[in-house]
Protein backbone atom coordinates (compact mmCIF):
# COMPACT_ATOMS: atom_id res chain seq x y z
CA UNK A 1 0.00 0.00 0.00
CA UNK A 2 2.74 2.38 1.01
CA UNK A 3 4.60 1.50 -2.15
CA UNK A 4 1.54 2.28 -4.17
CA UNK A 5 1.16 5.69 -2.54
CA UNK A 6 4.84 6.42 -3.08
CA UNK A 7 4.44 5.37 -6.66
CA UNK A 8 1.50 7.72 -7.15
CA UNK A 9 3.35 10.59 -5.47
CA UNK A 10 6.29 10.05 -7.76
CA UNK A 11 4.02 10.11 -10.76
CA UNK A 12 2.14 13.18 -9.55
CA UNK A 13 5.38 15.11 -9.88
CA UNK A 14 5.77 13.92 -13.46
CA UNK A 15 2.18 14.96 -14.17
CA UNK A 16 2.82 18.38 -12.64
CA UNK A 17 5.97 18.66 -14.74
CA UNK A 18 4.09 17.82 -17.92
CA UNK A 19 1.26 20.16 -16.97
CA UNK A 20 3.58 23.14 -16.40
CA UNK A 21 5.52 22.42 -19.59
CA UNK A 22 2.32 22.24 -21.60
CA UNK A 23 1.22 25.59 -20.16
CA UNK A 24 4.58 27.14 -21.07
CA UNK A 25 4.54 25.68 -24.52
CA UNK A 26 0.97 26.84 -25.15
CA UNK A 27 2.03 30.32 -24.07
CA UNK A 28 4.95 30.25 -26.51
CA UNK A 29 2.81 29.10 -29.41
CA UNK A 30 -0.02 31.50 -28.56
CA UNK A 31 2.59 34.20 -28.50
CA UNK A 32 2.91 33.86 -32.25
CA UNK A 33 -0.42 35.63 -32.28
CA UNK A 34 1.20 38.52 -30.58
CA UNK A 35 -1.89 40.59 -29.85
CA UNK A 36 -3.17 38.08 -27.35
CA UNK A 37 -0.16 38.39 -25.15
CA UNK A 38 -0.30 42.11 -24.64
CA UNK A 39 -1.57 41.50 -21.14
CA UNK A 40 1.52 39.59 -20.14
CA UNK A 41 4.01 41.48 -22.27
CA UNK A 42 5.81 44.60 -21.25
CA UNK A 43 2.84 46.74 -22.20
CA UNK A 44 1.67 45.57 -18.82
CA UNK A 45 1.60 48.76 -16.81
CA UNK A 46 3.53 47.64 -13.74
CA UNK A 47 6.38 46.25 -15.78
CA UNK A 48 6.38 49.28 -18.04
CA UNK A 49 6.45 51.56 -15.03
CA UNK A 50 9.52 49.81 -13.76
CA UNK A 51 11.26 49.96 -17.10
CA UNK A 52 10.42 53.63 -17.39
CA UNK A 53 12.07 54.19 -14.05
CA UNK A 54 15.18 52.24 -14.95
CA UNK A 55 15.32 54.00 -18.29
CA UNK A 56 15.17 57.42 -16.70
CA UNK A 57 18.37 56.56 -14.86
CA UNK A 58 20.12 55.38 -17.99
CA UNK A 59 18.81 58.31 -19.99
CA UNK A 60 20.49 60.77 -17.68
CA UNK A 61 23.84 59.54 -18.91
CA UNK A 62 22.81 59.87 -22.53
CA UNK A 63 21.61 63.48 -22.21
CA UNK A 64 24.67 65.00 -23.78
CA UNK A 65 24.44 62.90 -26.93
CA UNK A 66 20.69 63.47 -27.14
CA UNK A 67 21.20 67.23 -26.85
CA UNK A 68 23.77 67.19 -29.61
CA UNK A 69 21.43 65.24 -31.85
CA UNK A 70 18.58 67.65 -31.15
CA UNK A 71 20.59 70.74 -31.90
CA UNK A 72 21.89 69.21 -35.13
CA UNK A 73 18.38 68.36 -36.17
CA UNK A 74 17.25 71.86 -35.25
CA UNK A 75 19.82 73.43 -37.51
CA UNK A 76 18.93 71.13 -40.35
CA UNK A 77 15.26 72.00 -39.95
CA UNK A 78 15.96 75.72 -39.83
CA UNK A 79 17.99 75.44 -43.01
CA UNK A 80 15.11 73.63 -44.60
CA UNK A 81 12.68 76.37 -43.56
CA UNK A 82 14.88 79.01 -45.11
CA UNK A 83 15.21 77.02 -48.31
CA UNK A 84 11.48 76.48 -48.50
CA UNK A 85 10.74 80.14 -47.80
CA UNK A 86 13.05 81.12 -50.61
CA UNK A 87 11.38 78.72 -52.98
CA UNK A 88 7.96 79.92 -51.92
CA UNK A 89 8.81 83.54 -52.52
CA UNK A 90 9.99 82.77 -56.04
CA UNK A 91 6.85 80.81 -56.80
CA UNK A 92 4.30 83.24 -55.41
CA UNK A 93 3.56 85.48 -58.40
CA UNK A 94 2.70 82.59 -60.70
CA UNK A 95 0.14 80.88 -58.50
CA UNK A 96 -3.37 82.15 -58.78
CA UNK A 97 -5.59 79.23 -57.70
CA UNK A 98 -5.14 77.29 -54.51
CA UNK A 99 -5.62 73.91 -56.19
CA UNK A 100 -1.98 73.77 -57.23
CA UNK A 101 -0.92 74.18 -53.69
CA UNK A 102 -2.54 71.03 -52.39
CA UNK A 103 -0.21 68.58 -50.73
CA UNK A 104 -0.19 65.25 -52.56
CA UNK A 105 -2.50 62.94 -50.57
CA UNK A 106 0.19 60.31 -50.01
CA UNK A 107 2.34 62.89 -48.26
CA UNK A 108 -0.08 63.91 -45.51
CA UNK A 109 1.67 62.73 -42.39
CA UNK A 110 1.76 63.66 -38.77
CA UNK A 111 4.45 62.58 -36.35
CA UNK A 112 3.86 61.43 -32.80
CA UNK A 113 7.05 61.58 -30.80
CA UNK A 114 7.63 58.79 -28.30
CA UNK A 115 10.34 57.43 -26.08
CA UNK A 116 11.77 53.92 -26.04
CA UNK A 117 11.37 52.47 -22.56
CA UNK A 118 12.40 48.91 -23.25
CA UNK A 119 14.19 47.27 -26.12
CA UNK A 120 16.33 44.28 -26.91
CA UNK A 121 18.84 43.72 -29.68
CA UNK A 122 20.35 40.38 -28.77
CA UNK A 123 17.40 38.03 -29.21
CA UNK A 124 16.26 36.35 -32.38
CA UNK A 125 12.90 38.10 -32.02
CA UNK A 126 13.44 41.61 -30.70
CA UNK A 127 10.79 44.06 -29.55
CA UNK A 128 10.69 47.72 -28.52
CA UNK A 129 8.24 49.22 -26.03
CA UNK A 130 7.22 52.88 -26.39
CA UNK A 131 5.73 55.16 -23.76
CA UNK A 132 2.85 56.32 -25.99
CA UNK A 133 -0.32 54.35 -26.65
CA UNK A 134 -3.88 54.51 -27.90
CA UNK A 135 -4.71 57.74 -26.04
CA UNK A 136 -1.88 59.49 -27.88
CA UNK A 137 -3.29 58.34 -31.21
CA UNK A 138 -1.04 55.39 -31.92
CA UNK A 139 -2.62 52.58 -33.92
CA UNK A 140 -1.50 49.17 -35.08
CA UNK A 141 0.61 49.08 -38.29
CA UNK A 142 1.92 52.62 -38.01
CA UNK A 143 5.54 53.06 -39.04
CA UNK A 144 8.18 54.12 -36.53
CA UNK A 145 11.29 56.13 -37.43
CA UNK A 146 14.04 57.94 -35.57
CA UNK A 147 16.16 60.87 -36.69
CA UNK A 148 18.57 58.37 -38.19
CA UNK A 149 16.10 56.29 -40.20
CA UNK A 150 13.60 53.44 -40.19
CA UNK A 151 12.98 51.68 -36.87
CA UNK A 152 9.99 49.36 -37.27
CA UNK A 153 6.23 48.91 -37.24
CA UNK A 154 3.77 49.18 -34.33
CA UNK A 155 2.45 45.74 -33.48
CA UNK A 156 0.36 46.09 -30.34
CA UNK A 157 -1.13 49.05 -28.56
CA UNK A 158 -2.47 49.36 -25.04
CA UNK A 159 -3.93 52.48 -23.47
CA UNK A 160 -0.62 54.13 -22.63
CA UNK A 161 2.04 51.92 -24.19
CA UNK A 162 2.78 50.30 -27.48
CA UNK A 163 5.09 47.55 -28.68
CA UNK A 164 7.04 47.91 -31.91
CA UNK A 165 8.51 45.15 -34.03
CA UNK A 166 11.84 46.64 -35.06
CA UNK A 167 13.84 45.80 -38.17
CA UNK A 168 15.76 43.45 -35.85
CA UNK A 169 13.03 40.83 -36.02
CA UNK A 170 12.61 38.38 -38.90
CA UNK A 171 8.84 38.76 -38.55
CA UNK A 172 8.87 41.95 -40.62
CA UNK A 173 10.33 42.81 -43.95
CA UNK A 174 10.45 46.44 -45.04
CA UNK A 175 10.28 47.40 -48.67
CA UNK A 176 13.29 49.53 -49.62
CA UNK A 177 14.82 50.91 -52.78
CA UNK A 178 18.11 52.38 -53.89
CA UNK A 179 18.19 56.12 -53.83
CA UNK A 180 20.28 56.07 -57.01
CA UNK A 181 18.51 53.52 -59.20
CA UNK A 182 14.99 53.05 -57.73
CA UNK A 183 15.26 49.24 -57.75
CA UNK A 184 13.38 47.94 -54.72
CA UNK A 185 13.68 44.88 -52.53
CA UNK A 186 12.82 43.63 -49.06
CA UNK A 187 15.02 44.42 -46.09
CA UNK A 188 15.13 41.46 -43.71
CA UNK A 189 17.20 40.93 -40.56
CA UNK A 190 19.61 38.00 -40.58
CA UNK A 191 19.28 37.30 -36.86
CA UNK A 192 22.91 37.79 -35.98
CA UNK A 193 24.17 41.33 -35.64
CA UNK A 194 22.08 44.34 -34.66
CA UNK A 195 24.04 46.52 -37.09
CA UNK A 196 23.36 44.58 -40.28
CA UNK A 197 20.44 43.22 -42.31
CA UNK A 198 20.05 41.57 -45.70
CA UNK A 199 18.44 42.97 -48.81
CA UNK A 200 16.59 40.45 -50.98
CA UNK A 201 15.12 40.42 -54.47
CA UNK A 202 17.75 42.52 -56.23
CA UNK A 203 18.29 40.88 -59.62
CA UNK A 204 21.76 40.38 -61.04
CA UNK A 205 21.49 42.96 -63.82
CA UNK A 206 21.32 45.81 -61.30
CA UNK A 207 24.54 47.80 -60.94
CA UNK A 208 25.64 48.10 -57.32
CA UNK A 209 28.44 49.93 -55.58
CA UNK A 210 29.49 49.75 -51.95
CA UNK A 211 27.98 52.54 -49.89
CA UNK A 212 24.84 52.97 -52.00
CA UNK A 213 22.05 54.45 -49.89
CA UNK A 214 18.81 52.56 -49.28
CA UNK A 215 15.60 54.47 -48.61
CA UNK A 216 12.04 53.35 -47.98
CA UNK A 217 10.18 52.78 -51.22
CA UNK A 218 6.85 54.32 -50.30
CA UNK A 219 5.10 51.33 -51.85
CA UNK A 220 3.46 50.41 -48.55
CA UNK A 221 1.24 52.74 -46.62
CA UNK A 222 3.36 52.40 -43.49
CA UNK A 223 6.33 54.53 -44.47
CA UNK A 224 6.49 57.55 -46.77
CA UNK A 225 9.08 57.50 -49.51
CA UNK A 226 12.64 58.52 -48.83
CA UNK A 227 13.37 57.63 -45.22
CA UNK A 228 16.93 56.31 -44.95
CA UNK A 229 17.18 52.61 -44.09
CA UNK A 230 20.87 51.85 -44.53
CA UNK A 231 23.87 51.62 -46.82
CA UNK A 232 25.37 48.69 -48.70
CA UNK A 233 28.18 47.18 -46.69
CA UNK A 234 28.95 44.19 -48.85
CA UNK A 235 27.41 42.26 -51.73
CA UNK A 236 28.12 39.05 -53.58
CA UNK A 237 26.51 36.91 -56.22
CA UNK A 238 27.19 33.32 -57.15
CA UNK A 239 27.54 32.31 -60.78
CA UNK A 240 24.29 30.32 -60.58
CA UNK A 241 22.19 32.83 -58.65
CA UNK A 242 19.70 35.24 -60.12
CA UNK A 243 19.67 37.49 -57.09
CA UNK A 244 22.36 39.28 -55.12
CA UNK A 245 23.13 38.58 -51.50
CA UNK A 246 23.44 42.07 -50.10
CA UNK A 247 24.58 42.97 -46.59
CA UNK A 248 23.17 46.31 -45.46
CA UNK A 249 24.48 48.45 -42.64
CA UNK A 250 21.39 49.77 -40.90
CA UNK A 251 20.99 53.52 -40.57
CA UNK A 252 19.67 53.27 -37.03
CA UNK A 253 21.83 52.20 -34.12
CA UNK A 254 19.34 50.10 -32.18
CA UNK A 255 21.59 49.89 -29.13
CA UNK A 256 21.34 53.63 -28.43
CA UNK A 257 17.80 54.23 -29.65
CA UNK A 258 15.85 56.45 -27.27
CA UNK A 259 13.60 58.99 -29.03
CA UNK A 260 11.46 57.91 -31.98
CA UNK A 261 8.62 59.30 -34.10
CA UNK A 262 5.52 57.32 -34.93
CA UNK A 263 4.12 58.10 -38.37
CA UNK A 264 0.41 58.80 -38.51
CA UNK A 265 -0.60 58.58 -42.17
CA UNK A 266 -3.77 60.60 -42.30
CA UNK A 267 -5.23 59.01 -45.43
CA UNK A 268 -4.51 55.45 -44.35
CA UNK A 269 -8.18 54.49 -43.98
CA UNK A 270 -9.20 55.98 -47.30
CA UNK A 271 -6.37 54.33 -49.22
CA UNK A 272 -6.94 50.93 -47.58
CA UNK A 273 -10.67 51.01 -48.22
CA UNK A 274 -10.21 51.95 -51.85
CA UNK A 275 -7.63 49.20 -52.39
CA UNK A 276 -9.87 46.68 -50.71
CA UNK A 277 -12.83 47.68 -52.84
CA UNK A 278 -10.91 47.21 -56.05
CA UNK A 279 -9.77 43.77 -54.96
CA UNK A 280 -13.29 42.53 -54.41
Amino acid at each position, binding site marked *: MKNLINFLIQYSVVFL*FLFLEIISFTLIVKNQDYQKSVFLSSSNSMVSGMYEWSNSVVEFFKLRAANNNLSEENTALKNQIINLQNKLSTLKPEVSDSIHFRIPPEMEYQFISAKVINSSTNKLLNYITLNKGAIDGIKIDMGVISDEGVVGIVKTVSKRFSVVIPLLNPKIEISCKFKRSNYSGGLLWSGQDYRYANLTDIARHVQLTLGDTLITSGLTSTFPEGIPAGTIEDFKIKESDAYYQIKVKLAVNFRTLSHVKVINYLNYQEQKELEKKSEE
Partner: protein
Amino acid sequence: MPTVLQNIFRFLLLVLFQVLVLNNIQFLGYINPYLYLLFILALPVQMPRWFLLILAFILGLSIDIFSNTIGMHAFATVFVAFFRDRIIKLFTNIEEGNNPTPSFYTFGVSAYVKYVVLMVLIHHTTLFLLEAFSIAHIWIMLAKILLSSLVTILLILGIQSLKTK
Protein backbone atom coordinates in the same frame (compact mmCIF):
# COMPACT_ATOMS: atom_id res chain seq x y z
CA MET B 1 18.73 34.47 8.19
CA PRO B 2 16.14 31.69 7.88
CA THR B 3 16.36 29.79 4.62
CA VAL B 4 12.89 30.82 3.46
CA LEU B 5 13.55 34.54 3.81
CA GLN B 6 16.96 34.13 2.27
CA ASN B 7 15.43 32.44 -0.76
CA ILE B 8 12.68 35.02 -1.21
CA PHE B 9 15.31 37.74 -1.06
CA ARG B 10 17.49 35.85 -3.53
CA PHE B 11 14.53 35.41 -5.91
CA LEU B 12 13.76 39.14 -6.01
CA LEU B 13 17.40 40.14 -6.30
CA LEU B 14 18.14 37.70 -9.12
CA VAL B 15 15.03 38.62 -11.14
CA LEU B 16 15.77 42.33 -10.86
CA PHE B 17 19.45 41.85 -11.67
CA GLN B 18 18.56 39.68 -14.65
CA VAL B 19 16.03 42.02 -16.25
CA LEU B 20 17.60 45.35 -15.41
CA VAL B 21 21.28 44.54 -15.90
CA LEU B 22 22.06 41.22 -17.56
CA ASN B 23 19.39 41.41 -20.27
CA ASN B 24 21.05 44.61 -21.46
CA ILE B 25 24.44 42.97 -21.79
CA GLN B 26 25.40 42.05 -25.27
CA PHE B 27 28.99 41.06 -25.60
CA LEU B 28 30.12 40.14 -29.12
CA GLY B 29 26.47 39.61 -30.03
CA TYR B 30 26.46 36.12 -28.62
CA ILE B 31 26.67 36.33 -24.86
CA ASN B 32 23.58 36.84 -22.79
CA PRO B 33 24.08 35.19 -19.39
CA TYR B 34 21.03 33.95 -17.50
CA LEU B 35 22.17 34.15 -13.92
CA TYR B 36 18.66 33.79 -12.49
CA LEU B 37 19.09 30.02 -12.71
CA LEU B 38 21.20 30.33 -9.56
CA PHE B 39 17.94 30.51 -7.60
CA ILE B 40 16.99 26.97 -8.68
CA LEU B 41 20.55 25.75 -8.20
CA ALA B 42 20.76 27.06 -4.64
CA LEU B 43 17.47 25.69 -3.26
CA PRO B 44 17.86 23.09 -0.47
CA VAL B 45 18.46 19.57 -1.72
CA GLN B 46 15.46 17.90 -0.09
CA MET B 47 12.94 20.46 -1.33
CA PRO B 48 9.73 18.65 -2.41
CA ARG B 49 9.86 18.19 -6.13
CA TRP B 50 6.36 19.52 -6.83
CA PHE B 51 7.22 22.71 -4.97
CA LEU B 52 10.50 23.02 -6.85
CA LEU B 53 8.65 22.75 -10.17
CA ILE B 54 6.12 25.42 -9.19
CA LEU B 55 8.87 27.77 -8.00
CA ALA B 56 10.72 27.19 -11.27
CA PHE B 57 7.57 28.02 -13.22
CA ILE B 58 7.01 31.25 -11.29
CA LEU B 59 10.66 32.24 -11.69
CA GLY B 60 10.65 31.55 -15.44
CA LEU B 61 7.38 33.37 -15.96
CA SER B 62 8.64 36.43 -14.05
CA ILE B 63 11.64 36.64 -16.34
CA ASP B 64 9.37 36.08 -19.35
CA ILE B 65 7.04 38.91 -18.43
CA PHE B 66 9.95 41.32 -18.28
CA SER B 67 11.64 40.21 -21.47
CA ASN B 68 8.66 39.67 -23.80
CA THR B 69 9.38 35.99 -24.27
CA ILE B 70 6.24 34.51 -22.80
CA GLY B 71 6.69 30.85 -21.91
CA MET B 72 10.28 30.33 -23.05
CA HIS B 73 12.07 30.88 -19.75
CA ALA B 74 9.22 29.15 -17.89
CA PHE B 75 9.60 26.08 -20.10
CA ALA B 76 13.39 25.92 -19.81
CA THR B 77 13.43 26.53 -16.05
CA VAL B 78 10.74 23.94 -15.29
CA PHE B 79 12.57 21.52 -17.56
CA VAL B 80 15.85 21.87 -15.74
CA ALA B 81 14.17 21.86 -12.31
CA PHE B 82 12.61 18.50 -13.14
CA PHE B 83 16.04 16.93 -13.61
CA ARG B 84 17.68 18.62 -10.64
CA ASP B 85 17.17 15.78 -8.17
CA ARG B 86 18.52 13.18 -10.54
CA ILE B 87 21.56 15.28 -11.36
CA ILE B 88 22.28 15.83 -7.67
CA LYS B 89 21.99 12.07 -7.03
CA LEU B 90 24.29 11.43 -9.96
CA PHE B 91 27.19 13.45 -8.57
CA THR B 92 26.79 13.29 -4.79
CA ASN B 93 25.57 10.92 -2.11
CA ILE B 94 23.63 12.99 0.38
CA GLU B 95 22.32 10.89 3.29
CA GLU B 96 18.65 10.68 4.11
CA GLY B 97 17.63 13.32 6.64
CA ASN B 98 20.36 15.71 5.64
CA ASN B 99 19.13 18.83 3.88
CA PRO B 100 22.12 20.89 2.77
CA THR B 101 22.05 23.86 0.40
CA PRO B 102 24.14 23.06 -2.69
CA SER B 103 27.53 24.75 -2.54
CA PHE B 104 31.25 24.01 -2.75
CA TYR B 105 31.27 23.06 0.95
CA THR B 106 28.40 20.63 0.99
CA PHE B 107 28.95 18.96 -2.40
CA GLY B 108 32.69 19.23 -2.71
CA VAL B 109 34.30 21.31 -5.44
CA SER B 110 34.31 18.82 -8.30
CA ALA B 111 30.75 17.58 -7.71
CA TYR B 112 29.43 21.13 -7.42
CA VAL B 113 31.15 22.27 -10.61
CA LYS B 114 29.76 19.26 -12.51
CA TYR B 115 26.30 19.96 -11.10
CA VAL B 116 26.37 23.64 -12.15
CA VAL B 117 27.79 22.91 -15.61
CA LEU B 118 25.23 20.25 -16.43
CA MET B 119 22.27 22.25 -15.12
CA VAL B 120 23.27 25.43 -16.95
CA LEU B 121 23.91 23.57 -20.20
CA ILE B 122 20.51 21.86 -20.09
CA HIS B 123 18.77 25.14 -19.32
CA HIS B 124 20.55 27.23 -21.96
CA THR B 125 20.20 24.58 -24.66
CA THR B 126 16.44 24.31 -24.06
CA LEU B 127 16.08 28.06 -23.95
CA PHE B 128 18.00 28.86 -27.13
CA LEU B 129 16.36 26.00 -29.03
CA LEU B 130 12.97 27.38 -28.05
CA GLU B 131 13.98 30.90 -28.98
CA ALA B 132 15.14 29.92 -32.45
CA PHE B 133 12.33 27.40 -32.92
CA SER B 134 14.23 26.00 -35.86
CA ILE B 135 17.65 24.66 -36.71
CA ALA B 136 18.25 27.11 -39.53
CA HIS B 137 21.01 29.00 -37.73
CA ILE B 138 22.48 25.95 -36.05
CA TRP B 139 26.10 27.18 -35.76
CA ILE B 140 25.20 30.60 -34.44
CA MET B 141 22.91 28.94 -31.97
CA LEU B 142 25.57 26.50 -30.80
CA ALA B 143 28.00 29.34 -30.33
CA LYS B 144 25.38 31.28 -28.39
CA ILE B 145 24.59 28.30 -26.17
CA LEU B 146 28.22 27.53 -25.40
CA LEU B 147 29.41 31.09 -24.84
CA SER B 148 26.40 32.16 -22.78
CA SER B 149 26.59 28.96 -20.71
CA LEU B 150 30.28 29.57 -20.10
CA VAL B 151 29.64 33.09 -18.80
CA THR B 152 26.69 31.98 -16.67
CA ILE B 153 28.72 29.12 -15.19
CA LEU B 154 31.65 31.42 -14.39
CA LEU B 155 29.31 33.97 -12.79
CA ILE B 156 27.59 31.33 -10.66
CA LEU B 157 30.85 29.70 -9.56
CA GLY B 158 32.32 33.14 -8.85
CA ILE B 159 29.38 34.17 -6.69
CA GLN B 160 29.41 30.83 -4.85
CA SER B 161 33.14 31.02 -4.16
CA LEU B 162 32.64 34.38 -2.45
CA LYS B 163 30.40 32.70 0.12
CA THR B 164 32.11 31.83 3.37
CA LYS B 165 30.42 28.65 4.53
